[in-house]
């Protein structure tokens, strides 16, 4: 099941783990991405707190944890090729995986149709 936030992140939930990245809309807004700063594996991050930083040619942008949980894995490919976030934002350009500490948080997120409507309203 895929969820979306109003901060333009996506979460793919499989069992008790969520894979997190930024949406195609978000990468389009950021432009050419040159560096992604990822969290430490093992870090416990609360929903809405800083989890990653995306550096484009022009600016640095924060990425917030879409839910509360522990970081279990980060995408090693982004170190070598941060432009994966531009070319495959909702796939190979994922940022990190995390546990789902409070499943109720998922209920407040959007599904794909909800996010689509949200983006169109911007």
């Amino acid at each position: 099941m895929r969820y979306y936030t109003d901060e333009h992140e996506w979460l793919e939930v499989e069992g008790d783990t969520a894979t997190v990245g930024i949406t195609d809309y978000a990468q389009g807004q950021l432009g050419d991405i040159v560096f992604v700063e990822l969290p430490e594996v093992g870090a416990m991050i609360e929903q809405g707190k800083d989890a990653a930083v995306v550096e484009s040619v022009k600016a640095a942008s924060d990425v917030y944890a879409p839910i509360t949980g522990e970081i279990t894995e980060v995408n090693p490919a982004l170190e070598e090729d941060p432009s994966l976030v531009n070319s495959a934002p909702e796939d190979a350009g994922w940022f990190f995986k995390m546990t789902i500490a409070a499943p109720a948080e998922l209920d407040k997120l959007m599904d794909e149709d909800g996010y689509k409507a949200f983006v169109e309203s911007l």
Partner: protein
Amino acid sequence: MTDHDAEDFVEDLPLEPLPLDAWHRARGARMVPFAGYEMPIQYEGIVAEHTWTRESAGLFDVSHMGQLFISGEGVEPALEAVLPIDLTTLKHGAPRYSLLLDANGGVLDDLMVTRWSEGFYLVVNGATKWDDIAHLREHLPDEVTISHMDDSALLALQGPKAFAALERLVSGDTPLASLTFMKGAAFKLGGVDAWISRSGYTGEDGFEISLPAENVAAVADLICEQPEVKPIGLGARDSLRLEAGLPLYGHDMTPDTSPIEAGLLFGINKRRRTEGGFPGAERIIREIAEGTTRKWVGLKLEGRLPAREGAEVFVGEGKVGTVTSGGFSPTLGAPIAMAYVASEHAAPGTQLEVEVRGKRLAATVSPTPFVPHRYHRGN
């Protein structure tokens, strides 16, 4: 997702549309507030636009900049009293870089001054133009008239193919080829009267074109019809000037920096370095003789993480400076920055560290430009 970026945003003033506003939007530009206007930050993407300008030719709308015409009895001594320029060596039509300084030698703006037959044509920064006009009005005598040419637009065509593209479109008393770097003349461009100088802010060969605002959309269309040319946004303008080692007012120099600290000695013309007689002369002449405690330098960073404006520079535990501009160089594929550092750490090759979000990045003081200039200086 939240941007950290703080732009030159003039608060509390309604954003004004520039003459090419609709033209930019029709070409898919993303518009952002800048210097009190809505301006195009990018069209297809900063890196693509940056590379296109380095390899072909890019058209920049810089109509937010202030174009002033200063004339009247006694204009020459009056201008020399407010600028550290030597007008006796300024030939007709050739733009020269100069500085608007406060009484303490702090930089209020940087600008271009060109002698026209009846007076002087000045191009000043967009974000500072209203303050500049007020400053000039206060410090120039009543006989000297300041005309704000707000019915004129300003374009820049930059890149190795800029000449080929523009030459097709212009006619004048002299061929476009007669202009070398930092020379200018009047031309007809697509039937429109235009003042064209061979100058710019990218480090590439190129031209700056002043023309009536009412004709700018048609002329911009004509220029972009040339196969070498694409429109380029402010984002690439910034990455191009950063690679070219060109300072940006409000970031790399401010009222809190002197031109000598900023490495802008060339903006203080030779005769004025001994004669003085301009605002802040005492401090500036002293700094020329004795040096300054800090200097503006280029930095090359290891890794891929860019250091932005405000990042602190260290040697060991000691803070020795601050980054004033920084980003990722598309040409070098690496982060570059400009910073003020203590003069004892300013020599090229000096190893420093820059702190970004608690992390220390290795940096080396680098000569500027980071990417060599390719100005057309003639044979």
